[in-house]
């Protein structure tokens, strides 16, 4: 009964003691604010990662060689060569392959107009560009024929090109030097996701054979550091990966149980790992938020006990004119719930505000990431519900005490 009246009374009470109410709600505000923040930031990070990875292509398996062959085999025994790549491409077990990027990478220094720049040189076939979703923003990438001829052509990544030449266009046709060898800038492609990963990347691409011919130390010639195998959309990744490994072991004459030799990563796995890490962080923050909510709830209980004491006469009067114990109980439960819900709403608005601010800051620092702010309706609903339940839970004892007051004693209370 009279729910609207109770809510109105509660809000009146709250507004009459704004400062006190705010301090009381602080625990709830912090608890709910952190729940909202971690859920929203988690979702924002996930969306960002997803957008980066889908741009990168999720239907790619990366395989590297760890060199851990066990005690009786030499480490240099196993590595990929271009012949292996050809064998994989032609395998009847792996018809889903749409391209293989076969990378030989080394760190070096690029010189232009008297300036030196640290670069990661990525020697690869022309497949590198399609497999990694790298598209020319200026000029063009090298062709299969040019790669096969070991042309001294080079393709730069966008940010690096802008760093050296101001704009991507200006880089085209320029001659740069790496380790004393001159290269002709053929084109500029978009940056790799996450700016090229933790290695931090001024990535430059040259044909694999060019890398062997001019830059690789003699013992590295014909060795491939890692391969990226792109497979057709709709392929079941786990099964494909198993068959791929089986074929690689067959080609490399390895025993079937020598899985340690390879480092295998598909990007779906990467997403799964991120999901797990995110979940762990979210659970951890949820635990802290729970503590904050408990502390906040005890604060609410405390203030409600004080309120019941202060308003003993009012309770006596209400009972004298016919309020039953249940009506008084409900009235004070609603007051506690209104208090925590208002605290929850402040927490939600504050948490979302901080998230928005964080997104703006990150976007200001890393403009090319273009992180999108997202609202998580589930988190907002959950936060509202939890804050209301906190009020009802911790308001129960004070409300019960209020409802048990004897009307005569309550009316005479001084």
């Amino acid at each position, binding site marked *: *009964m*009279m729910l*609207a*009246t109770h809510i109105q009374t509660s809000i*009146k009470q709250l507004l*009459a003691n704004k400062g006190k109410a705010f301090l009381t709600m602080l625990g709830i505000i912090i608890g709910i604010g952190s729940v909202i923040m971690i859920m929203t930031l988690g979702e924002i990070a996930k969306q960002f990662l997803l957008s980066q990875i889908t741009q990168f292509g999720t239907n790619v398996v990366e395989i590297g060689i760890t060199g851990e062959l066990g005690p009786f085999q030499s480490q240099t025994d196993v590595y990929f060569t271009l012949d292996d790549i050809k064998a994989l491409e032609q395998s009847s077990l792996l018809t889903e392959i749409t391209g293989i990027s076969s990378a030989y990478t080394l760190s070096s220094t690029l010189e232009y107009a008297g300036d030196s720049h640290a670069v990661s040189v990525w020697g690869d076939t022309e497949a590198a560009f399609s497999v990694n979703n790298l598209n020319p923003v200026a000029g063009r990438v090298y062709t299969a024929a040019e790669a096969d001829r070991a042309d001294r052509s080079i393709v730069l990544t966008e940010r690096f090109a802008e760093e050296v030449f101001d704009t991507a266009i200006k880089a085209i046709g320029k001659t740069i030097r790496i380790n004393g060898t001159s290269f002709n800038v053929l084109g500029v492609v978009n940056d790799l996701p996450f700016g090229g990963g933790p290695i931090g990347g001024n990535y430059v691409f040259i044909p694999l054979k060019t890398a062997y011919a001019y830059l690789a130390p003699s013992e590295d010639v014909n060795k491939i550091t890692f391969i990226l195998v792109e497979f057709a959309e709709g392929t079941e990744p786990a099964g494909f990966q198993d068959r791929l490994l089986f074929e690689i072991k067959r080609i490399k004459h390895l025993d079937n149980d020598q899985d340690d030799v390879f480092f295998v990563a598909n990007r779906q796995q990467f997403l799964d790992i991120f999901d797990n890490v995110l979940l762990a962080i979210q659970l951890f923050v949820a635990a802290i938020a729970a503590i904050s909510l408990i502390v906040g709830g005890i604060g609410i209980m405390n203030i409600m006990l004080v309120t019941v004491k202060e308003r003993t*006469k*009012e309770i*006596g*009067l*209400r*009972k*004298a*004119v*016919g*309020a*039953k*114990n*249940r*009506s008084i109980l409900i009235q004070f439960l609603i007051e506690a719930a209104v208090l925590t819900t208002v605290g929850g709403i402040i927490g939600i608005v504050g948490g979302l505000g901080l998230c928005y601010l964080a997104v703006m800051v990150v976007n200001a620092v890393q403009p090319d990431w273009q992180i999108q702010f997202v609202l998580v309706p589930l988190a907002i609903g959950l936060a509202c519900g939890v804050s209301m339940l906190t009020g009802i839970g911790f308001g129960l004892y004070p409300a019960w005490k209020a409802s048990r007051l004897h*009307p*005569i004693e309550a*009316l005479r209370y001084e």
Partner: protein
Amino acid sequence: MPTSPRPSKTEAIIRITTLTKTYWNGAVAIPAVQGVDLTVRPGEFIALMGPSGSGKSTLMNLLAFLDAPSSGSYWFAGNNITDFSEDYLADLRNSVLGFVFQQFHLLPRTTALDNVALPLLYTGVKRKQARLRAAELLQKVGLGDRVYHRPNELSGGQQQRVSIARALVNNPMVLFCDEPTGNLDTKTSGDIMKLISQLHHEGKTIIMVTHAEEIADYAERRVQLRDGKIVQS
């Protein structure tokens, strides 16, 4: 809701026989009301009087369903009241009684209108209707132009008028007044007593607790208590 048929003119509205109330202070029994017989007829205006500790307040609390007696019987409007559970007494207070207190007991930060309407909300009357009825009664007690004032914007006499309006809002069978002028100056006291007398002349049954002779003079019958017993009725 209790069944409460309006009594005929001759039937007693309240009849109590050998009513007692004993409070316990640890193991010590304090007999506040010791076997009281009293009959109140419809339309009567009774003043309950007696020195402090005489049991007049306890008796009023028992008559007004604010407390349960230790023994004895209580007929209200012909019904023998045997159920003294908190919920049932709350229903009785809400439906057949009105209260005027010495300290007014108005809700702060709440308009006169909503203060008067309060008992009806516990009856389950819709707020809009309750407010209409409350406005009607504020008009009756002479505060038609003060309906949206809050208690702190009203004088003591005006506050007591609001509380009288609140006591009448459910059209009670009996109006209980506990020292209704105890917090008011002489002039205002006279005004309030004139209002209560007017209600009596309109046929309301009124039971008033007071210790002041000049206030008791407004009543038509005095019930004098001493040591928990009626000494003069």
